[in-house]
């Protein structure tokens, strides 16, 4: 298991190679383009055997991936932002057709205005699409979670596509030491791709993508919903098996110094590390603060999140996304996860780091201050951190 210095996009390219992906249709878009570039290089050098399809749009990239997956082979693609948005229609189709495609995302802000930097609006806006969603904190995680994504997606109790998000540049273009597993171990972990379901095959003709009437549609949607529920335990198992094989531990939600924490930060993706560092700093100052990192966002880890945050006084959710007219998605779903609970902590939403605005230790300190004050009295639910309120006021009038 050699350590290599890899950028996030290279991590996922190596994951594709190790998973022995057969078809890779892709379309360039910053910040995910390094993925097809690396794949093209590995193929040109004879290090990887796969068909690389330089399609004419992301819509076609995912469509081609479905075509390929329908024949039973492993298919993967990568994209970001506008590219993912252009796939929107096809995302629902891939999951509805139960195609276990894996896709690496370089999480990037959506237009307009056009901006190529990190936030998670692109994948969050696809939370209804029926795809499993993983988020990486580091390039090591990017590689590992991509392999795990195949394991989960192809599980016969699941058969759903999965995306693996990594923040633009902060992961995609940042080089870090990555432990690249041995082919043999990956082969053992993933196993031969089992195909005990119909595929496109002249020997056994089947029809895919039929026209479904009200008589059946809802039941089929329900069965897809159930498959996503199944994914919950399948993911846990895949994490366990991964740990056994490779020694690296994952869980849908992981806590850091949460036990006695009165304020808990919740983060997802690359901004977690800086939050962890902040928590350390604050702890040194004697602050009772903890951190929860979300690694799996779909299916949403309701129970896990509630159980890890329930004893806090205040939960400060960091959303690198926003739904205008409501708030951040993680915040919304975390609050909703408390529906059945008798009591819940105060939950505050912090919109941060949109469009590549750097998320710094001082920003987290600010978050902590607001959260701490919110232990009692009135509080503001949706807080935009590190924005220029004056500039906005000038444009929109009152705030």
């Amino acid at each position, binding site marked *: 298991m050699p350590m290599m210095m890899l950028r996030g996009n290279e991590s996922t390219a190596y994951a594709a190679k190790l998973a022995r992906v057969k078809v890779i249709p892709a379309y360039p878009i910053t910040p995910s383009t390094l993925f097809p570039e690396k794949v093209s290089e590995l193929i040109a050098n004879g290090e990887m055997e796969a068909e690389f399809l330089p399609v004419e749009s992301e819509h076609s990239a995912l469509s081609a991936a479905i075509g390929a997956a329908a024949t039973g082979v492993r298919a993967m693609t990568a994209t970001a932002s506008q590219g993912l948005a252009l796939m929107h229609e096809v995302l629902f189709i891939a999951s*509805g*057709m139960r*195609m276990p495609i894996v896709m690496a995302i370089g999480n990037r802000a959506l237009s307009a205005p056009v901006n190529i930097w990190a936030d998670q609006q692109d994948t969050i806006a696809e939370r209804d699409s029926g795809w499993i969603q993983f988020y990486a904190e580091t390039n090591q995680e990017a590689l590992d979670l991509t392999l795990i994504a195949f394991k989960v997606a192809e599980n016969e109790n699941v*058969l759903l596509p999965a995306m693996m998000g990594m923040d633009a540049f902060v992961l995609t273009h940042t080089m870090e030491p990555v432990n690249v597993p041995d082919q043999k171990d990956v082969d053992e972990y993933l196993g031969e791709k089992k195909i005990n379901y*119909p595929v496109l095959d002249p020997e056994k003709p089947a029809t*895919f993508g039929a026209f*479904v009437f009200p008589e059946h549609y809802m039941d089929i949607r329900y069965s897809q919903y159930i498959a996503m529920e199944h994914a919950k335990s399948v993911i846990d198992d895949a994490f366990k098996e991964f740990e056994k094989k490779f020694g690296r531990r994952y869980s849908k939600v992981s806590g850091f110094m949460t036990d006695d924490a009165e304020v808990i930060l919740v983060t997802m993706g690359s901004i977690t590390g800086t939050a962890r560092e902040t928590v350390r700093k604050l702890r040194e100052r004697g602050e009772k603060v903890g951190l929860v990192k979300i690694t799996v966002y779909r299916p949403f880890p309701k129970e896990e999140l509630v159980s890890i945050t329930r004893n806090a006084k205040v939960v400060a959710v960091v959303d690198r996304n926003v739904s205008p007219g409501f708030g951040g998605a993680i915040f919304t779903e975390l609050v909703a996860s408390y529906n059945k609970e008798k009591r819940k902590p105060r939950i505050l939403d912090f919109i941060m780091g949109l469009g590549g605005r750097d998320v710094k230790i001082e920003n987290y300190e600010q978050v902590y201050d607001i959260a701490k004050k919110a232990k009692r009295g009135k509080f503001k639910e949706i807080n935009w951190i590190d924005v220029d309120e004056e500039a906005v006021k000038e444009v929109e009038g009152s705030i």
Partner: protein
Amino acid sequence: MKISRGATITEPGSTALEETGSWRTFRPVIRYEKCIRCMICWNFCPEPAIEKKEGENYPVANPKLIKMPVPVINYNFCKGCGICVNECPTKAIDFVREEK
């Protein structure tokens, strides 16, 4: 099984279980005495509701044709479009209103 995963259908050609004869208001009737077994109707029937059958047991316009296959309409599927009626070169297919 009432539904299938991803709505995949594994029974090829199963619309043949769904008869479309009820759509018909006019019925094409082949008068085999006039039929020259050119199979043009068979070529063009869109359902396809015209089957190619061994011809020996059917009336024949010309005894030379007796060995040739013959078109037989499957009324379970014929929608009564009338293409066969219109295209038959010997006008061998009548088109009659379905009984009310």
